[in-house]
């Protein structure tokens, strides 16, 4: 449990246009151990999304080192990076990002298609995870026939489908009603207990309070990094 799965050293990201340089990340260093549930907080523009995109292999840093599960991401080819996104990371986006007018089952199967898992097996796995997130009766519903909360649960099932080490969630509750948001957080805690590392971005303290560790960012820098005990208190309230 104590091996770091993510090591970030002196990571910077600078966006250059003709006239301006925008520093999104300024020399960030931190580690994430296996099995952690980490929330990254901060106001908009603090660089938390940029950090998350780099951690997820969706974007490249301008400088610095990022070691994911022992591999230096910088040295990886585009195709290797695609494999890492496919196998090691599960994404949950604020806007769900499901294929429109496509069944929940097919959506969950998509990453497995790219992993080359045979069709029958894909279907069984997809069904298993959809049942896990409580959508066992919505397998043949298309994504536009279900609510926002349900869509996000499909996205979580999709993220889990290849049993990745890390789940990256970018404002996972940002687009859904608060009652459903709590359900989503319960699922995340469940997943975390099963051993998945979770890194979640949020600007809502309520949501962040579910995490075991909270990093706060501002102006591209980490300004606070604390273990969170409130979470236990929160559970007591139930």
């Amino acid at each position, binding site marked *: 449990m104590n091996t770091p799965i993510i090591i970030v050293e002196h990571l910077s990201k600078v966006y250059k246009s003709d006239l301006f340089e925008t520093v999104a990340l300024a020399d960030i260093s931190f580690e994430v151990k296996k099995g952690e549930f980490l929330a990254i907080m901060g106001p908009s523009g603090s660089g938390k999304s940029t950090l998350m995109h780099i951690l997820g292999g969706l974007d490249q840093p301008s400088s610095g080192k990022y070691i994911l599960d022992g591999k230096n991401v910088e040295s990886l080819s585009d195709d290797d990076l695609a494999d890492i*996104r496919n196998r090691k990371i599960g994404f949950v986006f604020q806007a769900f990002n499901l294929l429109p007018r496509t069944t929940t089952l097919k959506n969950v199967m998509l990453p497995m298609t790219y992993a080359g898992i045979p069709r029958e097996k894909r279907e069984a796995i997809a069904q298993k995870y959809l049942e896990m997130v409580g959508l066992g009766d919505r397998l043949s519903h298309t994504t536009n026939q279900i609510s926002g909360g349900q869509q996000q649960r499909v996205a979580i099932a999709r993220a889990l489908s290849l049993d990745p080490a890390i789940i990256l969630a970018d404002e996972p509750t940002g687009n859904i009603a608060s009652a459903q948001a709590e359900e989503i957080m319960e699922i995340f805690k469940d997943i975390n207990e099963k051993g998945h590392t979770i890194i979640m971005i949020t600007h809502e303290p309520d949501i962040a309070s579910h995490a075991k560790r909270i990093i706060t960012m501002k102006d591209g820098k980490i300004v606070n990094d604390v273990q969170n005990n409130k979470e236990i208190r929160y559970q007591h309230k139930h």
Partner: protein
Amino acid sequence: MELSEIISESFSSLTLNKLRTGLAMLGIVIGIGSVIALISLGQATQASISSRIESLGSNLLTVNPGSSNQGAVRGASGSRTTLTLEDASAILVAPEITSVKTVSPEFSRRIQIVTGSKNTNTQVVGSSPSYSEVHKLEIATGNFVTQSDVEGMSKVAVLGPQVVTDLFGEGADPLGQTIRISGKTFTVVGVTVSKGGSGFGNLDDIVYVPISTAQKQLFGVNYLSSIALEAKTADLMTTAQNEVGYFLLARHKLSDPAEADFSIFSQQDILNTASATTSTFTTLLSGVAAISLLVGGIGIMNIMLVTVTERIREIGLRKALGAKKKTIIAQFLTEAIILTFIGGIIGIILGILTSYVISKLTGSLFVVSPGSVILAFAVSVVIGIVFGWYPAKKASDLQPIEALRYE
């Protein structure tokens, strides 16, 4: 990812947005369909002109006598009297002439024909039975000049429909009736089927009599005004022209082709002249077809560009979930191929159907050239694939996050 997976993924993508897929396909259908229909129309026109010329007789060669030169005075072409019936029979039997199928010796001259109170000035053609074969002449009633008519120098006549109308009235049955040509009485034994045409070269305004009767009894000559030849195949036209030319030179004891007392025209010469005049028309139609292909192509291009641009976010998502660059490109390429292929086939069917309907409505020939089908199909497929592939390639080169955030 296996090919079958990519194909099924492409199919489900295409069925996802039926309107978009339908519009993209419509561009291809119209592009291909209109080109095929237009080119067919052009070729049908050309073919109908050619077929009219060919109705004069197929693979036809005509030997005409040359001009008679007396010293420095050059006579009219055809005025020589050196072409004889013997020349014609010699051509038919000569072992060195292998490319000629039928020989038709002919003597024709315009003359006055009388029946009862009516008379007309028309072309009288002295012919042998082979005439109807060489000139593709069909008999409506009765029969054509027979071999025994020629041998017996019979006074029989076969009339063109125009002559029947002029002498006996529209739709009359002249069989068994008599006409007078140059004071001699001829019995009408047949009427030919109309070949159309009008004016001086009217093929229906002709009276056919046996060649022997024409030479000896009507005009008192022993030469021919022409010998018509039918080559065995279209490819043998030039061979036939050469074989007959050298054979007649030798027969007329001439060594220099420049001194030839005859000339040989091939029907090909007439066809060439005709196709030269119709080529202007064809160029015009090809131009219109090229423009529709261009417009169709631009339509395909637009739809493809819009389709892929609209899906850049989807490409970003697929990349985020682990799709490799080549998988993305393979999927979009497959989609473009499926789209252009199905659209192409519908377009071909529609184009052929359109030209069929046009041919039925206008009574023209129904021609579909494989060349135009292949051209239209190839151009649309290439445009569809290039403009489906190119933006997909660009999108797949983006960082996944840029594609995901694309507005």
